[in-house]
C-alpha cells in the first residue's frame, strides 16, 4: 500500500495493489476496472509486478491478457487530470473494497 500518495492534484500517479477479489482480475472486477478507466479523464495502464509491458486498462482484451490471479500484485500507472481519482477507484475495486 502506498497511501502516502495523497497529492490529489498530481497528474501522474503510480500505485501497487494486491488483487483481493475472488478469482483474480477476471469477469466482474475486470469489467469494472475497464469501466472506471474509461470514465476518468486520464490514461490508466496496468502492469504485472513480475514484468511485462504495461497494458491499457480501458481494453478488456488487454486486461484479460494479463491473467492476474487473486493475491497477485499489480502496478497501476495513471497519467492525466484525474489520475489520483482513477487510481483510488480502481484500487478499491481490485482489493475488494468496492461493493459493486
Amino acid at each position, binding site marked *: 500500500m502506498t497511501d502516502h500518495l495523497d497529492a490529489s492534484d498530481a497528474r501522474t500517479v503510480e500505485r501497487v495493489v494486491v488483487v483481493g477479489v475472488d478469482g*483474480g482480475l477476471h469477469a466482474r472486477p475486470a469489467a469494472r476496472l475497464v469501466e472506471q478507466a474509461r470514465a476518468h479523464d486520464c490514461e490508466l495502464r496496468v502492469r504485472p509486478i513480475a514484468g511485462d509491458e504495461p497494458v491499457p486498462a480501458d481494453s478488456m482484451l488487454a486486461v484479460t491478457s494479463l491473467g492476474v490471479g487473486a493475491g497477485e500484485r499489480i502496478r497501476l500507472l495513471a497519467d492525466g487530470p484525474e489520475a489520483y481519482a482513477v487510481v483510488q477507484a480502481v484500487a478499491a475495486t481490485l482489493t475488494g473494497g468496492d461493493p459493486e
Partner: protein
Amino acid sequence: MTDGTTTPGSGLVSPEAVALDEPVTGRRDCVERLVELADATGRVDDREVALRAVFDREAEGPTGVGEGVALPHARTDAVAAPTLAFVHVREAVDFGGPDDADLLFLLLVPESDDVHLSVLSRLARALLDGGVRERLRTAETPAVAARVLREVVA
C-alpha cells in the same frame, strides 16, 4: 513432452471444435453452437451441464472484450480436460463488449484445473495482435484455424 500430440496446445484445440463462416446469430445460439463444437471433441461428458456453467458465467459479466472478440468460458466438471472451441460468425454478435464480436472462443476447464486463467490470458495476449485476428478471420478451413490457435496458445 516431445511428441507434438501431447503438447497442451494440441490437446486443447482440434479442428472438430472449429467452425467458420457460421450463419448463427444471437448470443444464446452462439454459445450453444460453441458448446456443441466442444462436445464434438468427445471431451464433454454432459453438454447441458457445460452449457449451464457457461450461461452462469455470462450472467456475471460481459465476455465481449473488444476487437471483435468474445471469450465465453467456464470451469466445469462437465469436461475431462481443458477444451477450446472457436467459431467465426458471418455477422458479429453482441456479447456485451465495446463492439460486436465475430471471433468467438469457448474455453471449458475442469473445476480442479488451474490452467483456466493462463489459457485465457495467453489467448487474449495472442488476440491483441491484429495479424492473428486476421489469420483467424481469413482461415479457409477449420484445420488452418486450429493450427493458428495451437500456435498461439501452446
